[in-house]
């Protein structure tokens, strides 16, 4: 079946929904495709807050937010992008409030704000209250509010449509082609649909499911990143993957940094606040990469807690019942439900959990996808949110900046696409565009025999967790590169057990595994080639940052014999790279 719109939005998290809202307001015919229902998107799992220098609690300036973002990202951030992020954060948060978002309030009725890791006053002097929040369900309220406003604006949704291919006109995406639409698989009945459009936004989120311990939803398999990659578009900075320090032990469900923003502490088995050894000034409000490394070192040196000495404690007992129940209710419940631990009276076992891809599909400030070191634009293709790399997070994202990113650049994407659609002609699409993906899907379900995709997925997740985690060495990453290549080969022979048409999740999970393998391949190859330590990419064999050789973004291009790598310079405007201490 063929459906045409002027614009398509792939993914209905925060970035996709805000883009759709802008497009609807501009009168552009838009279809939003999501493999879930919009309110299931993982933006809804964000907890602690969204930073904007409103200055409601104390003096603050967007320039300080910009600086913190650049320093937090270990100077790999494109500073023009960080400027847009910090500056436009203010108006986007205000606009969200106008749309109805129920922020917590200060005594005088303004949006309440609290502390978060790495966010400081006056260029690093001390913590600042910058994170605007709605209890510890800020992401839930952002997702709900944007969905509500999309309903109000009459946005057309295609719920449970799984996008399985991108369409280009006049060549591949990586070779001068222009976006022309997508092919989507309707989950309800297994039919393929061709969607034609002038502009396509990839807002499909991250790919944390390539790791065995992750805060990410099952749905986060890097679909948009992989589809771009398969069409010749590079993936940028994939080696920079954030491990959040406080995942629930053994499961990985996130316990928000807001717990530390409100005064929670981290303790080792001896009850010691070990962060004093690693970040004596910022302590538990140091950036996430530093805290995850500190936890790793505490455990390595035998100071981990529990029978296997493999976790540390998050302690909020001293905050008192009122603060915990009013400002941290959800994460308190998570500890009760998933660990059987009562945070009011017991410290909570935590370990680092795979959380966020700093890298992704390269874009310019206007959210247009770019395909090389000269920032050559792929006409008609846009990306925003975690799927994209603009790059505002550099080598390590600060807490709350994921939400800021998807709001600011989701909004920009919608506006940019609306302007593009006014000028662009409708592309032409060939008749047989569904064929390649149809034969791939048919092969998965009709092969006479083959190994199980779910077992292979578990192998991939363990391989990546063990070898491309918080700490890395050349040997570990070589293991990962070879292991991913072997899994990729075996993937060509997997077979799903469910051969039906109706709601075949077995088939889609197998398809998603292919996306995860692409992301893992780009990540492992980009990581082993970066012979330095910067932000979340931390190597025992190259412990120092190397600005001479690696103040540059990695671009990983897909190739038959594995990815080929190129590099593009970092944009530096206001802040020269300095040693990063907290």
């Amino acid at each position, binding site marked *: 079946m063929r459906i045409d719109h002027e614009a398509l939005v792939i993914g209905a998290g925060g970035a996709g929904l805000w883009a759709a809202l802008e497009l609807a307001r501009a009168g552009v015919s838009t279809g939003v495709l999501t493999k879930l229902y919009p309110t299931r998107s993982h933006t809804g*799992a964000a907890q602690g807050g969204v930073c904007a220098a409103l200055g409601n609690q104390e003096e603050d300036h967007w320039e300080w937010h910009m600086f913190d973002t650049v320093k937090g990202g270990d100077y790999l951030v494109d500073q023009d992008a960080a400027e847009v992020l910090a500056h436009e954060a203010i108006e986007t948060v205000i606009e969200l409030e106008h749309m109805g978002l129920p922020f917590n309030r200060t005594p005088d*009725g303004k949006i309440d704000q609290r502390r978060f890791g790495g966010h400081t006053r006056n260029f690093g002097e001390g913590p600042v209250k910058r994170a605007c929040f709605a209890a510890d369900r800020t992401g839930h309220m952002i997702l709900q509010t944007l969905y509500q406003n999309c309903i109000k604006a009459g946005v057309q949704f295609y719920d449970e449509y799984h996008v399985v291919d991108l369409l280009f006109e006049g060549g591949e995406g990586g070779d001068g082609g222009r976006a022309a639409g997508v092919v989507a698989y309707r989950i309800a009945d297994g039919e393929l649909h061709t969607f034609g459009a002038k502009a396509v936004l990839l807002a499909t989120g991250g790919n944390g499911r390539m790791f065995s311990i992750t805060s990410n*939803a099952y*749905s986060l398999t890097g679909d948009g990143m992989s589809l771009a990659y398969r069409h010749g578009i590079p993936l940028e900075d994939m080696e920079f993957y954030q491990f959040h320090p406080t995942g629930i032990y053994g499961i990985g469900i996130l316990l928000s940094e807001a717990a530390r923003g409100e005064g929670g502490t981290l303790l080792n088995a001896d009850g010691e606040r070990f962060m004093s050894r690693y970040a004596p000034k910022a302590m538990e409000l140091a950036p996430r990469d530093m805290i995850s490394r500190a936890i790793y070192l505490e455990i390595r040196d035998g100071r981990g807690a529990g029978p296997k000495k493999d976790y540390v404690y998050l302690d909020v007992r001293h905050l008192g019942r009122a603060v915990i129940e009013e400002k941290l209710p959800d994460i308190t419940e998570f500890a009760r439900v998933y660990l059987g631990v009562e945070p009011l009276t017991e410290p909570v076992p935590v370990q680092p959990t795979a959380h966020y891809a700093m890298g992704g599909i390269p874009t310019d400030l206007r959210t247009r996808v770019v395909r090389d070191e000269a920032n050559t634009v792929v006409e008609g293709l846009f990306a925003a949110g975690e799927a994209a790399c603009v790059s505002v997070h550099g080598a390590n994202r600060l807490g709350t900046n994921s939400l800021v990113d998807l709001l600011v650049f989701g909004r920009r994407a919608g506006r940019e696409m609306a302007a593009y659609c006014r000028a662009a002609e409708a592309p032409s699409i060939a008749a047989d565009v569904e064929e390649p993906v149809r034969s791939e899907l048919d092969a998965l379900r009709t092969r006479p025999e083959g190994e*199980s995709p779910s077992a292979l997925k578990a192998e991939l997740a363990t391989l990546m967790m063990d070898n491309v985690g918080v700490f890395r060495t050349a040997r570990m990453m070589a293991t990962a590169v070879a292991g991913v290549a072997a899994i990729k080969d075996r993937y060509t022979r997997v077979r799903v057990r*469910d051969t039906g048409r109706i*709601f075949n999740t077995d088939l889609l999970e197998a398809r998603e595994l292919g996306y995860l393998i692409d992301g893992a391949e780009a990540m492992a190859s980009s990581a082993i080639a970066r012979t330095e330590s910067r932000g979340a990419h931390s190597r025992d064999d190259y412990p120092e940052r190397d600005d001479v050789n690696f103040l540059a973004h990695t671009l990983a291009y897909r190739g038959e014999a594995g990815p080929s790598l190129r590099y593009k310079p970092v944009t530096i405007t206001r802040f020269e790279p300095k040693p990063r201490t907290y």
Partner: protein
Amino acid sequence: MQVDLRILRFDPERDTAPHWESYRVEAEPMDRVLNLLTTVKAEQDGTLTFRRSCAHGICGSDAMLINGRNRLACKIRVDQLGKKITVAPLTGLRVVKDLVVDMDTFFSKYRSVMPFLMTDSPAPERERRQSQADRARYDDTTKCILCAACTTACPSFWAQPSYVGPAAIVNAHRFIFDSRDDAGDERLEILADKDGVWRCRTIFNCVDACPRGINITRAILEVSRAVVERSV
């Protein structure tokens, strides 16, 4: 421990009617039902079909009928259920396949109550002010994740599928009692309809079902009271 898991299966491409199938699954007491379902799907029967996404009770994908009560599969543990566990799809919505139900009617009910902020005054330069007390007035109903556990636990909805249902009323409440909103009247008119709040019989099944701990019956009563006050 070994769990005896019974699942109500239905594949429209093969079956004429739903039927129970049994599985024996090795589980830990702290495992959630979602762990059991993913284990069965990975190791015993890849055709077992259910929705799931965040796996920690915030996305609302995996509401189902577990040991006779509506629960999120990712939030109810084996030690809360025992060694015999039955799982069936939500009641009152068309079954698409196994534990997957058609959510379209549920979301159209949600949309029918105008679940979005409407204001008469132009937006100010900065945020609209709201006191902490006014913010607290509707806090409980902002927690809804639209999982449909409440509506599909409601005997009034089972008896009268046109009833707008508790979830939609919860989402209307969230705006009716938001001091910034100016469209409470329109929503109350919608909910004064024969398929609106009066179908609630205060059976409290919705409160038991809600995985977010929302006091739904209280919210419905508050909306009912507002409907009455508006009409006098």
